[in-house]
């Protein structure tokens, strides 16, 4: 009962954040704008700037948090994040190459930077898989190590490109890696991102029982009838592609994917039937809240949201750990 109440509270919180966030900003907008009761200029800002940004923020936060939760369960490792397998380094390298080459194009109304980043993410997934399979049939440790090795390799490549590039381009690369939502305008990005996040979240939610069993141990999960290898492969690939898509649009926004699942675990327990929806709602609402703060706290200048997620989430997490961690 308690967990049902908590889930409902989280859903309400998410709703309030998603509806409230677009009204806040350098130009404050009355609530009535949501149903057209405001000046035309305000309505335009609401629907072409604020709403798309909030929607993409929610999709990105929810997707990163849920992917982090799934990776933590599959690796049985509390430190796993959506970026553990190197997806974000691959995407960042793709974006860095694009910036270094001085390209400027867009295709299917999606900026070239995102295409390069997404290609980098997909290549990384393929490489990490290839390495892990070639080594020892994709055991957990091999995959983690392959991911870490690939991450470091790509990070060095990015540094190398930064060293080669001029100041402006280097700055753009550094800025890209901080992650942010300020470039989102109009409905295009939502439509691009939605299918990836929808598919990724649907797969993770579908495998909620399997994730529960795998956290109790892979051998035990097999004994209970889970096709562990198949579940791991499907979840890893679909979640990684989702993360790749998110990172390609927003950059590698950190912390949400690591901490949102842990915060929800402390609130609602380890059962993925409740943990997964809670993580999705919390991750989405948290990123939207952080982004709202990021664009208002030192207005008219905007902070990259990736800086705020850790600044706000870190202390909150420590507080939860101290007050609830010891509870039965």
């Amino acid at each position, binding site marked *: 009962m308690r967990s049902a109440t908590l889930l409902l509270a989280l859903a309400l919180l998410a709703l309030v954040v998603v509806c409230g966030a677009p009204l806040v900003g350098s130009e404050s907008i009355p609530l009535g704008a949501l149903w057209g009761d405001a000046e035309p200029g305000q309505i335009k800002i609401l629907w072409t700037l604020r709403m798309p940004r909030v929607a993409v923020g929610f999709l990105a936060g929810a997707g990163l948090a849920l992917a982090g939760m799934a990776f933590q369960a599959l690796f*049985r490792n509390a430190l796993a994040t959506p970026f553990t397998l190197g997806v974000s380094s691959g995407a960042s390298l793709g974006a860095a190459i694009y910036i270094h080459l001085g390209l400027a194009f867009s295709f299917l109304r999606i900026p070239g930077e995102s295409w390069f980043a997404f290609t980098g993410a997909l290549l990384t997934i393929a490489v990490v898989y290839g390495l892990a399979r070639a080594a020892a049939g994709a055991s957990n440790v091999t995959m983690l190590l392959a991911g870490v090795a690939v991450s470091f390799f790509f990070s060095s490549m990015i540094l190398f490109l930064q060293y080669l590039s001029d100041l402006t381009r280097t700055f753009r690369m550094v800025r890209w890696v901080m992650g942010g939502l300020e470039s989102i305008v109009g409905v295009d990005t939502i439509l691009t991102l939605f299918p990836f996040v929808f598919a990724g979240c649907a797969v993770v939610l*579908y495998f909620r*029982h399997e994730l*529960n*069993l795998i*956290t*109790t*141990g892979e*051998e*035990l999960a*097999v*004994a*209970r*009838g*889970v*096709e562990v290898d198949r579940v791991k492969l499907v979840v890893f690939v679909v979640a990684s592609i989702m993360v790749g898509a998110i990172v390609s649009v927003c950059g590698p926004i950190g912390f949400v994917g690591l901490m949102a699942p842990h915060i929800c675990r402390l609130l609602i*327990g*380890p*059962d993925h*039937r409740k943990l997964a929806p809670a993580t999705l709602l919390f991750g989405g609402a948290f990123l939207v809240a952080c982004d709202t703060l990021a664009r208002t706290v030192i207005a008219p200048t905007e902070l990259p949201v990736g800086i705020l997620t850790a600044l706000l989430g870190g202390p909150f997490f420590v507080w939860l750990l101290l007050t609830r961690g010891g509870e*039965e």
Partner: protein
Amino acid sequence: MPDPQSPVLEIANFSFRIGTKEILRDVTFSVAKGEYLSIVGPNGAGKTTLLKCIDRIHRGGSGRIAVYGRPLESYRQRELARHLSYVPQADGRVFPFTVEQFVLMGRYPHLNAFSSIGHEDRKTVLEVMERAAITPFAHRRLDTLSGGERQKIYIAAALAQGAEVLLLDEPTTFLDYRHQAEIRDLLAEVNRNSGVTIVAVTHDVNRAAMDSHRIVALSAGRVVFDGAPADIMQADTLEQIYETSFLLVGHPQGDVPIIAPQLPGEAGP
């Protein structure tokens, strides 16, 4: 009582290797419905590997393993889990699920993908928790319980799974006397009253001889003994299996002798 006419498990000429190391060689034996079979043998003999091959935690190997006369490969894992369950040693890392949540997860092979856990599942879980005498812990977290309590919970979850064959890996090895007795009684009870077939790997040959209908001994991956408890309890047979000396004495309550611990310096090859 076991019915030799209907084997639940047939293993024929089964060999299994990990890398280039052959762990099991030409293993052949079968297990009758309702039988209580203990597998004994020295460390590294392949006992645990054999259990894991039977439950397809390890895949591959040559030869044949059949469950209810059907080859293992023809089963989907979920279907296999309705017949067999591997019960690991209750050590190692556990996630902080509650006892009830954990036992409920045993119902997995009976759920279809979109159905949530139903009335029937909850009823089964309450029954097995009562049976394993773990109802008082139902809302405790797994990581706050002792090894003995956890072992009972693992067995309860396997029973919730509806498995007719339990494959237990050293169910009592690291437990104190009271918990050993409780696990033993629980296994004997489900074997006797529900006809659950028990295949248990153990190091305790004394207990194996008293609890089981039959004993299989493995050494270096081969079956070196397959017979009645009374027949393994002979000094020369045990010495061949374990490559050390044994002192057997009469049991005050039964006919089968037991292994007595020897004084320091008396044992030797």
